[in-house]
């Protein structure tokens, strides 16, 4: 694996993404639709911080599930998988896709945060910014670390769109429960120390998932 070729692949993905804006447009629309549905359901109720934290990650989860598989599915659809296999090592491809997915998830959480702060201006108030930022950064990394290898698996299967959330959810449950708990703490304004335990779990999860995916990616990627 070389760093320069990894970033070259990330640049390639960013370029092709901006050329078609497929994932970006679809994801933004998905976020808007999901949040609108939640608003219809809640009407004028004042949800508690734990409900809002849960709904926040529900939107992030389903949006990520509709977008993150693109990284590999698009290679299969355009028939560029073979070329990529020839020009780059599996680990290079893996880390490039991991970085791209992390960036995509992180921008997704930013978008959802801004939208939530606008529509739930009374209840979605981030009282502990440091806790929230660390949660969102670790959460994005965790999402990407688990779902990149699943995306690579799903790209080889027949029923990609439905299979992706089905395969990802059991793997992501630990992460979802932890980030929901940490986000609730951030909204309630608990001191940063109160969420350190959650961050340790998240860090362990990210390390385990990235290491496991790195070792297994070759078996998925090579035909």
């Amino acid at each position, binding site marked *: 694996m070389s760093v320069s070729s990894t970033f070259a692949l990330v640049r390639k993905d960013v370029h092709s993404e901006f050329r078609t804006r497929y994932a970006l447009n679809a994801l933004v629309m998905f976020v808007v639709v999901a949040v609108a549905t939640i608003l219809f359901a809640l009407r004028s109720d004042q949800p508690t911080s734990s409900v809002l934290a849960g709904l926040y990650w529900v939107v992030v989860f389903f949006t990520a599930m509709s977008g993150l598989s693109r990284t590999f599915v698009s290679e299969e659809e355009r028939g560029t998988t073979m070329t990529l296999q020839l020009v780059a090592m599996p680990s290079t491809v893996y880390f490039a896709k991991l970085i791209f997915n992390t960036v995509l998830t992180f921008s997704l959480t930013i978008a959802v945060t801004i939208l939530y702060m606008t529509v739930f201006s009374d209840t979605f108030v981030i009282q502990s910014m440091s806790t929230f930022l660390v949660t969102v950064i670790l959460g994005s990394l965790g999402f990407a670390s688990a779902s990149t290898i699943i995306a690579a698996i799903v790209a*080889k*299967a027949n029923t990609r769109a439905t*299979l992706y959330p089905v395969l990802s*959810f059991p793997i992501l449950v630990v992460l979802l*429960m932890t980030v929901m708990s940490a986000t609730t703490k951030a909204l309630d304004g608990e001191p940063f120390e109160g969420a350190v335990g*959650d961050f340790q779990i998240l860090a362990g999860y990210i390390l*385990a998932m990235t290491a*496991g995916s790195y070792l297994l990616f070759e078996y998925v990627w090579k035909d």
Partner: protein
Amino acid sequence: MKAVKFVSITLITFVLIAGLAIPLSSNPQGWLEFPNIPGLEQKARNILYHVPIAWTTVVAFLVGTFYGFRYLKTKNIDDDIKSVSAAGLGFMFCFLATITGAIWAKFNWGSFWNWDPRETSIFILLLIYGAYFALRSALETEEKRAALSAVYSIIAGITVPFFIFVMPRIMSGLHPGAKGDPDGSGPVVQLKMSPNMLVIFLLGLLGFTLFFIWLFNIRVRLARLEYKRSVHHS
């Protein structure tokens, strides 16, 4: 394998009869009386069936993941046959553990499902098996199916320590060993059973494990025959 079959059937029959027949007593004398645990009473007998089944679920999962891992190393289709056979049995035992646990929970804790950490874990394990079989049916070529489902079962296996070691500590729960348990929390629950109950419990563990080995053997043999037939026909 014949010995395994007879020993497992004998052990399970013995555990079933002894576990149900030995009377409870508030002041147990000798080997033919179980202690009466307040709050559990007659329901305590389920520990002799529910826990060995849950234990076998874990064994089956580990066996399935192990053979998946071996397939990736050897690329020998027989390892995939073993892996999927263990997964099928694991799914069955997982289902049984969920059912026996839910019934016990209904009569002990008041409702069939409480999202206690262990209940959450077994629910996730059911989902993992569901996803595993969904993935297998969506892959057409045999090598791809074997390799990708092996990768998935290993990735799923990576999350298992989080369920066993981490989640019971951050969530409060009803099972022994959860956060807030006066006897201390931890993945390995201290066995504080009376000696006679402990013997029956351990025989139950052994019996169900041997039962799994026997069923596993039958399923592998059957799957090999089916595989041979499918190769022959195509």
